[in-house]
């Protein structure tokens, strides 16, 4: 199935965000072999050059390591993955807090809602 | 590349030609037997007379239809390949347009010759089946061949070695006219289809109609002039020596052959230039 994309953000950026989440959440475990550009482009129905751009960005972030012609693996550096997870979480929480403030929620009200919602989602 | 295109051009018509040829040959047997029946029963009452007459008619009709069908098929393939949507494939092949056109031309020629061969074979079969009374149990074919041989002997007696040259020229003229008739129709189709965007086929037929009329007109004029020349010259012929007559005949044959060659070249060049330069697909 082709991935869904939204307007306003470059495709390569959206691909990076999605793949980063997959790495953090363990869909691609540390040290495992990462799919090739071709395979990913095919499953996402995107241009291979665009996919390559995204993977290069993940390399720069340090989440992926290139083995040259052998392909790419997810980094074994679990610290880096943790750091990335932390950054992602902070970004998500930051967005949530901003929207909560727009709804005129106080910090404690927000925490109450979080507690309730977390329990219900179990 | 020419071989490849030729392979496909011939292959498209091949199966139908085979089936029709077989049918025609079978029917020629029927026709021959029909004539045989009529000839043998003669004045006596013949209960099968109607069938025999029908048999002959069917055979003659099938021979005409056979030649016509194959010719139309070849022409239609030319039109289809070059001037319909199929052209999108034809002209994106890594083949020169000239080669494609040559292939169509050679294919048409091969089928013309094949057609004639089958027709001759059919007639031979028919003649072989028809008996001729009087000279024992000979067949019409035998008699026919005897007449042909007599004619050939006569020819060689009068013209000796030159007769051979005349025959060769005669065959060449025949082949040239076959090629020319194909080329002129191709030229008409090409002109008609490159003149308009819609109703190309109708336009091609219209062009051919006009060209045909022109050729007929020219033929009438030419034969009129020729008959005048002949009538006025017949008296003179007796005054000519044998050598002069021989040269005259040779000259006439070469003139006709040259004329046909020039016409063929013109038609070929015209069609090809239009196909190479003025063929714009909508």
């Amino acid at each position, binding site marked *: 199935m082709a991935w869904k994309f939204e*307007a306003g953000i470059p495709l390569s950026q959206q691909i990076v965000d999605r793949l980063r989440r997959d790495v953090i959440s363990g869909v691609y475990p540390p040290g495992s072999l990462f799919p090739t550009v071709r395979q990913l482009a*095919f499953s996402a129905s995107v*241009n291979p*050059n665009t996919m390559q751009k995204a993977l290069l960005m993940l390399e720069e972030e340090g989440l992926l390591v290139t083995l040259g012609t052998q392909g790419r693996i997810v980094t074994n550096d679990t610290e880096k993955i943790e750091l990335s997870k932390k950054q992602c979480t902070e970004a998500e929480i930051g967005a949530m807090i901003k929207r909560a403030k727009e709804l005129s929620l106080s910090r404690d009200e927000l925490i109450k809602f979080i507690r309730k919602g977390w329990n219900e989602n179990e | 590349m020419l071989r490849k295109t030729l392979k496909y051009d011939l292959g498209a018509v091949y199966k139908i030609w085979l089936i029709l040829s077989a049918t025609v040959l079978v029917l020629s047997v029927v026709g021959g037997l029909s004539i045989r029946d009529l000839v043998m029963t003669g004045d006596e009452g013949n209960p099968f007379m109607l069938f025999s007459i029908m048999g002959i008619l069917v055979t003659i009709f099938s021979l005409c239809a056979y030649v016509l069908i194959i010719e139309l098929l070849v022409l239609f393939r030319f039109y289809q390949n070059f001037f319909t*949507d*199929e052209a999108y494939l034809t*002209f994106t092949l*890594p083949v020169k347009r000239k080669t494609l056109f040559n292939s169509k031309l050679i294919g048409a020629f091969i089928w013309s010759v094949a057609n004639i061969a089958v027709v001759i074979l059919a007639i031979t079969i028919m003649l072989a089946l028809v008996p001729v009374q009087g000279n024992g149990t000979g067949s019409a074919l035998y008699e026919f061949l005897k007449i042909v041989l007599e004619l050939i002997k006569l020819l060689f007696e009068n013209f000796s070695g030159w007769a051979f040259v005349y025959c060769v020229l005669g065959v060449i003229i025949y082949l040239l006219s076959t090629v020319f008739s194909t080329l002129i129709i191709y030229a008409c189709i090409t002109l008609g289809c490159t003149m308009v965007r819609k109703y190309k086929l109708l336009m091609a037929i219209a062009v051919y109609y006009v060209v045909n009329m022109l050729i007929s007109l020219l033929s009438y004029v030419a034969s009129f002039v020729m008959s005048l020349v002949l009538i006025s010259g017949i008296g003179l012929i007796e005054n000519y020596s044998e050598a002069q007559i021989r040269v005259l005949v040779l000259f006439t044959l070469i003139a006709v052959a040259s004329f046909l060659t020039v016409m063929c070249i013109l038609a070929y060049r015209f069609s090809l230039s239009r196909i190479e330069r003025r063929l714009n*697909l909508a």
Partner: protein
Amino acid sequence: MNDTPVLQCKNLTKSYKLGTNVLDNFNFSVPKGKIIGLLGPNGCGKSTLLKLVSGLLVPNSGEIEICGIPRSEETNSLISYLPERTYFNSRMRVSELIDYFSDFFPDFDRELAAKMLDDLAIPKGERLRALSKGMKEKVQLVMVMSRRAKLYLLDEPIGGVDPASREYILNTIIGNYSPESSVIITTHLITDIEPVLDEFAFMGWGGTILRAGDADTVRAATGKTLDELFREVFRYAPQNT
């Protein structure tokens, strides 16, 4: 490292009627390894350009070069062209069409064609005229994409096809991608084609390139999808008389 562009058009002019130039001194260059979308309203010259490059039309003036070689019937073996209409003899069988392509194009991959036909559930023994319109279009696409050409010219490849087939076709284009060859696609379905493109070019009348760029970064630059951008650029485009 050979950097010759796969396609180079120099000062290309083509007119059908006196006075109106469908393409007017058109200049266009396509490097290797790119999938380019040629987008524009009907009649702006997209199809005409593809036909000029594939040799179906002769330009009034200008030059076309394929991989540095001037256009001729020989460069046809480097180009794989998919027109909008079906172009095969309907009396042929699918298998005969495969033989035909193999015969004339040395770069035709029989196995790939067979595999794609199986994927699309198209019977190889069937005569082409017995297939539905959609299936005929798919067969044509399979033939074109089974070639290992340097330049693929696809004229409205996903226009008349259902969404599932559309995805298959786009995936085929992606799967066939090679850094040595390029693809030019013309289409109206911009949303579908956008993720597949490297670059896009909006073509206006006379063949002028109104806007061109990288399909990926234009989103960030304009905040719009390619489809929205297209509508914006062509909303008030004047009608040609």
